[in-house]
């Protein structure tokens, strides 16, 4: 392209992006249109990809299209396989996109749309995309090794051990927190519970169809499963209107928690083809379709954002979760900005499929940009709601009051008018008995999504269907994570126990399967139960724990990346990973300090334990006090692990930079690609 024309086009994108970010950041008073967020995000991503990722690729990583990748060198037709870059891109995106970028931004919207939007854009372009990109490339250069293996080789044994412990800790807290989101979305909702319960026989049917009737025809059976799920949504309406069925499917939070725990145990112990795989296919099918549909819906309908740019709750007095905008907005939104979990996928299946090193840029950096775009959609879905409605849905009864009238009065008193009658009408429109105190983020996202869709497709009359479609979509995501996450954690525990007693390491030995499944389910089930019984709604304490654990893993990933960059004699560019690392350390340490020691009982675990201890002693008090102290201990252990990895890495950096230690990276030797020769 002509250089002048190119300069003009990129200059225009930069000006447009700056103007959109300026409007998003500086506009006050009047509501703004969601398109400003869409334009700001698109321009940031395009500029970040075109310039920042190119800079990283050329100056730091020196991507080499002539170097054979493990997919080529170790091709076995199974896990190592040369694959088209767009196919790998889709595969990678399907693995990294979960409910996190939907739920986190919805919760963080209590600060207004601005903090979340700025963090999602800047966090993705300068931190999340960079982490995914560099870890993917470093794994490709090490035969597709995992993050824990790379951490052990490059930063030392401590790094490897901490990475392993962090993965287990994250999985346990993640599974508890996402299960709590489902419980909060389904409690007292016969329609939602019926629909989600129906997905279990649907998945079993799909498994049997795939195994016995049409082996391997997954796309075909996924379409069939999707149709059955739509019928289940319609059936849910019937169930909610039939008094007998409604009473069966109207469940309280503790009952739902027990059912989910039993379900996850069964799913972990059952053959993978029967339940886990078909549900994974079904949820992926629904996920990709719904994300695409939501994106189109937002652009076509370009709704107005009713939430202000900043709310009064930036001071830390928010009802959704306690704590100031710094550091809690950056802990609450992980997956849309930076997620340590992505480093596991970037060093898992994906590096074994990459055909050329140069393709790691579009797959690693590009797929994370798409994930970030999903988070922007979630911010829009939450912020199109009237703020009073948003806070009525997301605030726990322990904060706003037990009755609808009390909650409406409290929320209106904050300056966000809402009435009990408004909420009743909205609940009726979406087919629920009430929308008060539906904490967890999923119901608010579902109401926002239903609001956007109902403006175009079918109007108010079908709002209830859209709402339950959105709930089903999120719950399906989450149940897939519960199945797969419990199984992944089970394999990891079996791996470790196999060193003590060999049969325990055999993944096909049923006593070991049952024991390790029970162990993992009990671990996350304990935190889930704690969340269900928490008078502040559970999300208040569990989501920050999850955020801290996830950012800890990102810290490990960025420590590994910085160590390798320094060993590659690119120390002058180390800021590319070092600055996000320092930011994450600041955020994680500050948030952890507040969660443990803050004197405000709505923030600090120990303060809440003290308040409970000084209050009237009930049967539940002792347990609540213990839970708060346990959460404080878990947070302290996580921070201790961050500190250990940091110290170990810093020692390595100083050793290499001072010349005391040899700068030796553990890359696989260079082999010329055959693909280039074939093309020549």
């Amino acid at each position: 392209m002509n250089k002048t024309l190119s300069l003009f086009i990129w200059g225009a994108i930069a000006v447009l992006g700056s103007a959109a970010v300026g409007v998003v950041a500086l506009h006050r008073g009047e509501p703004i249109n969601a398109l400003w967020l869409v334009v700001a995000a698109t321009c940031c991503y395009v500029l970040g990809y075109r310039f920042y990722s190119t800079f990283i690729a050329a100056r730091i990583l020196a991507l080499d299209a002539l170097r054979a990748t493990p997919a080529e060198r170790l091709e076995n037709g199974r896990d190592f396989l040369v694959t088209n870059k767009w196919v790998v891109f889709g595969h990678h995106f399907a693995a990294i996109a979960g409910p996190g970028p939907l739920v986190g931004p919805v919760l963080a919207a209590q600060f207004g749309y601005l903090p979340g939007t700025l963090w999602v854009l800047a966090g993705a372009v300068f931190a999340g995309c960079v982490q995914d990109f560099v870890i993917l490339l470093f794994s490709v250069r090490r035969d597709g090794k995992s993050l824990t293996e790379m951490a052990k080789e490059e930063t030392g044994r401590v790094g490897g051990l901490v990475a392993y412990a962090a993965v287990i800790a994250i999985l346990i807290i993640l599974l508890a927190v996402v299960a709590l989101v489902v419980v909060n979305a389904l409690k007292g909702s016969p329609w939602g519970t019926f629909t989600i319960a129906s997905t279990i026989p649907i998945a079993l049917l799909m498994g049997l169809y795939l195994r016995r009737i049409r082996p391997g025809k997954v796309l075909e059976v996924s379409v069939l499963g999707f149709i059955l799920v739509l019928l289940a949504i319609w059936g849910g309406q019937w169930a909610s209107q039939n008094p007998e069925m409604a009473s069966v499917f109207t469940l309280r939070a503790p009952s739902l928690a027990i059912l989910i725990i039993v379900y996850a145990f069964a799913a972990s112990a059952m053959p993978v083809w029967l339940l886990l795989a078909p549900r994974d296919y079904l949820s992926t099918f629904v996920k990709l379709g719904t994300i695409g549909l939501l994106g189109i819906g937002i652009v076509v309908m370009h709704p107005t954002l009713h939430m202000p740019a900043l709310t009064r709750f930036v001071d830390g007095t928010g009802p959704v979760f306690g704590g100031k905008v710094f550091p809690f907005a950056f802990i609450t939104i992980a997956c849309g900005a930076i997620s340590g979990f992505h480093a596991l996928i970037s060093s898992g299946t994906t590096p074994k499929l990459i055909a050329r090193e140069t393709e790691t840029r579009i797959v690693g950096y590009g797929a994370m940009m798409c994930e970030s775009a999903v988070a922007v959609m979630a911010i829009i879905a939450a912020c199109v709601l009237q703020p009073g409605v948003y806070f009525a849905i997301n605030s726990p009864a322990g904060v706003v009051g037990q009755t609808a009238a009390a909650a409406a009065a409290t929320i209106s008193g904050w300056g966000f008018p809402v009435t009990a009658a408004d909420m009743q009408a909205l609940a009726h429109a979406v087919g629920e008995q009430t929308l008060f105190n539906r904490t967890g983020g999923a119901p608010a996202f579902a109401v926002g999504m239903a609001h956007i869709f109902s403006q175009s497709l079918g109007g108010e009359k079908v709002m209830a269907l859209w709402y339950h479609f959105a709930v089903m979509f999120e719950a399906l995501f989450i149940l897939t994570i519960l199945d797969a996450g419990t199984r992944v954690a089970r394999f990891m525990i079996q791996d470790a126990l196999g060193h003590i007693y060999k049969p325990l390491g055999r993944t096909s030995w049923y006593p070991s399967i049952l024991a390790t499944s029970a162990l993992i389910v009990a671990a996350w089930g304990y935190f889930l139960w704690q969340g269900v019984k928490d008078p502040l709604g559970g999300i208040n304490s569990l989501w920050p724990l999850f955020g801290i654990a996830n950012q800890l893993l990102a810290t490990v990933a960025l420590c590994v990346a910085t160590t390798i960059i320094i060993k590659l004699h690119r120390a002058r560019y180390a800021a590319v990973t070092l600055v996000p690392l320092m930011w994450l350390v600041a955020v994680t340490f500050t948030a952890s300090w507040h969660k443990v020691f803050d004197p405000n009982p709505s923030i600090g675990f120990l303060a809440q334990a003290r308040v409970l201890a000084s209050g009237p002693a009930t049967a539940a008090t002792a347990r609540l006090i213990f839970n708060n102290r346990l959460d404080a201990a878990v947070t302290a252990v996580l921070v201790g692990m961050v500190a250990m990895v940091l110290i170990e890495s810093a020692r390595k950096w100083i050793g290499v930079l001072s010349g005391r230690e040899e700068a030796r990276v553990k890359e696989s030797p260079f082999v010329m690609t055959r693909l280039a020769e074939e093309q020549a």
Partner: protein
Amino acid sequence: MKAVITAARIFLATLREIFDEAAYARFLSRTQMASSPTAYAAFWRERESSQKPRPRCC
């Protein structure tokens, strides 16, 4: 038109890869088996023994 067909082919290939249809096809070609309930069971046995479950992010 050619570009549209190429894009559609890549899209379908992506879906087949995400949904493991391509992996099953490779298994059949590698083991010289015809698609059947037995072959599909063998495919899953191999996947379970050779791979840990693919992680799914939050």
